């Protein structure tokens, strides 16, 4: 039962995936600041290393060596639990993402996916709903009025947009007929990407992804003009770092999920006709997958420095009376279309 090589293989894969996730999340903070500087005609961070390339490292070390203040009135255990849960939920999502086609190494077939759950989509949906707890617990435990306000705002926002997200995923399941992320990716070879079958569903999904990751124009939870710092007003040191970092990890993971669900994941057009060995195809697939992810990350950053933020009543109105009815219409229309064919 215990396959030694299997465990070694998975250990290497898990460390690589976690490492790459943390690395890209760290460097997307630098990309964010560099691009913001570009949009605002500034230079941006350039002190730490050449072109500021060591800036994420410097930030991380600074978070680590700062005092992690716990306010006197806060609930100490829950105060530390909040950011930890946020980080946990963010990191666990990378389990079901297929990072590339199978590799052939030493006569073994190595799947570049930590685990292929047959209910992968539901796993992701469950993690999204679990992510609310990190914000709720941390903001409540701070015992600060601004944090409480922002927590309640943030969690209502997240649960509202979760619904439209779930509905758009069901429309996707209607076209793919599977809940496994790997099978969804394998079902869109060449240019047969799901975005062509589900354009409206993708639009709803991407808006919800922005709202779930608390990115502009949905960054009401961190709305500094009204709520000081948002739900993490009282946080400092690595505890704050976890909240901020979890946001970037979520951004990376949701880019990867959008790529897998709607843009063919690691599938690369025309590569099958070249007749390359399987490992080379796999490597090209991984690279192409990451190119698509980086384009989504750029979109996240681009929108942040382009659009202003919503007002809270506009945000709730968009979620409940805009996206949810639209998602239901999309769902029923997809079903009719599929049944007629």
């Amino acid at each position, binding site marked *: *039962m215990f396959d030694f090589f*299997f*465990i070694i293989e*998975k250990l290497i*894969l*898990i460390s690589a995936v*976690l490492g790459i996730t943390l690395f890209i999340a760290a460097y997307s903070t630098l990309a964010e600041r560099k691009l913001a500087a570009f949009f605002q005609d500034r230079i941006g961070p350039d002190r730490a290393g050449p072109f500021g390339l060591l800036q994420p490292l410097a930030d991380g070390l600074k978070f*680590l*060596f*700062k005092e*992690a*203040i*716990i*306010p*006197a009135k806060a609930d100490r255990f829950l105060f*530390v639990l909040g950011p*930890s849960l946020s*980080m*946990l939920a963010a990191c666990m999502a*990378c*389990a079901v993402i297929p990072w590339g086609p199978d590799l052939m190494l030493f006569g073994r077939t190595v799947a570049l996916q*930590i*685990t*292929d*759950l047959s209910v992968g989509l*539901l796993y992701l949906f469950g993690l999204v709903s679990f992510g609310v707890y990190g914000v709720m617990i941390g903001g409540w435990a*701070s*015992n*600060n*009025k*601004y944090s409480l306000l922002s927590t*309640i705002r943030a969690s*209502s926002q997240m*649960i*509202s947009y*979760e*619904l439209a997200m779930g509905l758009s995923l*069901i429309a996707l*399941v*209607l076209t793919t007929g*599977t*809940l496994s992320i790997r099978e969804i990716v394998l079902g869109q070879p060449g240019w047969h990407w799901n975005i062509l079958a589900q354009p409206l569903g993708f639009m709803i999904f991407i808006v919800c992804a922005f709202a779930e990751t608390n990115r502009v124009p949905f960054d009401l939870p961190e709305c500094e003009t009204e709520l000081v710092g948002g739900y993490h*007003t*009282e946080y400092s*040191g*690595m*505890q704050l*770092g*976890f909240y901020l970092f979890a946001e970037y990890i979520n951004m990376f993971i949701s880019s990867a999920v959008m790529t897998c669900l709607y843009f063919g994941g690691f599938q690369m057009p025309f590569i099958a006709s070249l007749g390359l060995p399987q490992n080379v195809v796999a490597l090209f697939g991984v690279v192409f997958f990451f190119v698509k992810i980086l384009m989504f990350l750029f979109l996240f950053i681009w929108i942040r420095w382009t659009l202003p933020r919503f007002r*809270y*009543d506009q945000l*709730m109105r968009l979620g*409940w009376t805009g996206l*949810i*009815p639209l998602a*239901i219409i999309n*769902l029923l229309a997809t*079903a009719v279309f*599929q*049944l007629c064919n």
Partner: protein
Amino acid sequence: MFTVYFPLLMLLGAVLLFVVATMALTHLVGPKRASVHKHEAFECGIPSQGDARTPFSVQYFVIAILFVLFDVEIIFLYPWAMEFRSLGWTGFFEVALFTSVVCLGFFYIYRHRLFSFKK
């Protein structure tokens, strides 16, 4: 079963290790200087008044209940979405009826302006 869930457990272990170790490390290496004002809740520089344990607008509660209702509806739709080809038009009309009844409730709430968030 082993090949599917054991990697998930390993990932959970790795992430837990990372989170706990980092949290412990930051509390060990960071300085600790106690001060009354620093440990007070931040309220924009003026002395803080009371605490944040006060009752709050009930409108958010409405949102939370609605969320539960729609979440249950969404979960009901997943088995149908997996199997809607073999269920055919009968299944579609069942789901359409179900969804329209839920939407009726949704419309009822909309008419009572519970989404407006304005006083």
